[in-house]
């Protein structure tokens, strides 16, 4: 479904991605782990065209999307829940969801809204509250719901558990699994919390200094000595 090959991207002189190869198949949950500054967020953003790739190729459903503008990439069925959630603070929950529905047909809106409200009742309760006044967990839920409003086939999630209380975090991982199973959305997940992510994922990649240094199934990576040392123990 998603095929990234030889991808390079940079912020000015800083080379954040130095030739990355990643594949995500339809229906999978794929996790990407790695230390801070490894280039994980940059990879997700570059897939969406912001920043644009310096070289390499990104294919979605066999189509080259490397040079497409962001809004067109998103309209093909890729949604992102970015690092830091980026909920619109001065817009209500409902307006955030309306913006999220931009790529979808208008006729789906009411059904889709019912669907996310059924999944996340808290959002219905808070529908007229502005995004900036929600708690961290609520904002994370809103960011996920907002992404779902576009009816994506591939969902990119960047550290959805960051800064959340353990219980809320557990719930977020359950939600991700639900979205993947019941709504058939393919998931590419970036996580600091390597243990939870790898347990959830079918496959995983480990990134360091802008390169993929290891890949395997979730179980293989969990068992890997290097991964345990670097990302699991004391982490």
């Amino acid at each position: 479904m998603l095929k990234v090959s030889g991808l390079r991207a940079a912020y000015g002189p800083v080379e954040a991605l130095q030739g990355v190869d990643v594949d995500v198949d339809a229906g999978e949950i794929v996790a990407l782990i790695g230390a801070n500054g490894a280039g994980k967020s940059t990879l997700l953003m570059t897939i969406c065209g912001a920043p644009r790739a310096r070289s390499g190729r990104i294919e979605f459903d066999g189509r080259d999307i490397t040079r497409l503008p962001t809004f067109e990439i998103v309209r093909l069925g890729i949604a992102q829940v970015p690092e830091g959630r980026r909920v619109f603070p001065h817009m209500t929950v409902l307006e955030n969801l309306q913006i999220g529905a931009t790529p979808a047909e208008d006729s789906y809106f009411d059904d889709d809204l019912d669907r996310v409200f059924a999944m996340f009742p808290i959002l219905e309760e808070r529908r007229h509250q502005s995004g900036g006044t929600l708690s961290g967990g609520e904002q994370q839920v809103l960011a996920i719901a907002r992404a779902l409003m576009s009816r994506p086939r591939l969902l990119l999630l960047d550290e959805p558990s960051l800064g959340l209380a353990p219980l809320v975090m557990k719930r977020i991982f359950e939600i991700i699994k639900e979205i993947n199973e019941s709504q058939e959305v393919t998931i590419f997940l970036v996580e600091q919390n390597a243990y939870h992510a790898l347990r959830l994922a079918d496959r995983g990649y480990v990134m360091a200094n802008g390169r993929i240094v290891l890949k395997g199934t979730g179980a293989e990576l969990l068992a890997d000595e290097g991964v345990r040392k670097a990302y699991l123990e004391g982490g």
Partner: protein
Amino acid sequence: MAYFLQQLINGITLGAIYGLIAIGYTMVYGIIGMINFAHGEIYMIGAFISVICFTALGLLGITWVPLALLIVLVIAMVFTAVYGWTVERIAYRPLRGSSRLAPLISAIGMSIFLQNDVQLLQGARIKPLQPVIEGGFILTEMDGFAVHLGYIQIFIVFLTVVLMALFSVFIARTDIGRAQRACEQDRTMAGLLGVNVDRTISLAFVMGAALAAVAGTMVVLYYGVVHFYIGFLAGIKAFTAAVLGGIGSLPGAMLGGLLIGLIEVFWSAYFTIEYKDVAAYSILVLVLIFRPTGLLGKPEVEKV
């Protein structure tokens, strides 16, 4: 008291015109964080197009005032909007993502270019217009001073209030308005959600220009003259109004415009006309010292 009332009427009329121009500054600033220094020229072009249209309609024999006004307003808005769109395409979009200084210089260049352009095409002399909306009535008479309310003043204030109300609803309720606000708050995120950011920015320029065109038509009707230099002064006043109200805030631009108009008129009436501009800027400085975000400005959103 009568004198005061008269100044109030004049001040509100002038403030309405500044407010309409100020909306263009505040929208563009809100969305790309940059002052569009060419916006005053856009307003000036709107005024010139209005004079040309009124003259042409007169030659064509279309003299029924409501029809003539409608035609002139529509033509001025459309043509001026095209100018606004073009300025963004030529002077700003190619520089997006570069340093903050480059678009600033480009904006000033664009402003000088438009001024010279109009000067060459239309000449450097003041261009007059036959009065279109004449007359008015005496509101009251006190202490031998008649308070005069012109039909043109009623027209200006009424049209401004209607346009501002429509525009506020448009920004609050429609998809396009929502996209404008989303891009204001987080442009990258709006793009990630499928909003066409470039088009949204273009539309901010287009809408700001169309409102400035209305201000241009009004000023031509009010003063009966136009000159290629009016864009500079009015631009600076309206910009001051936008900052005073809180740059990036729509109600702020409207309030700021009204205040600047009132300050200017009252200062000229009660003190000396020479220092009326200084008065407006002094108020601005004072407000910014105590409220750096302007009267209705929101504190800068923390970007993650």
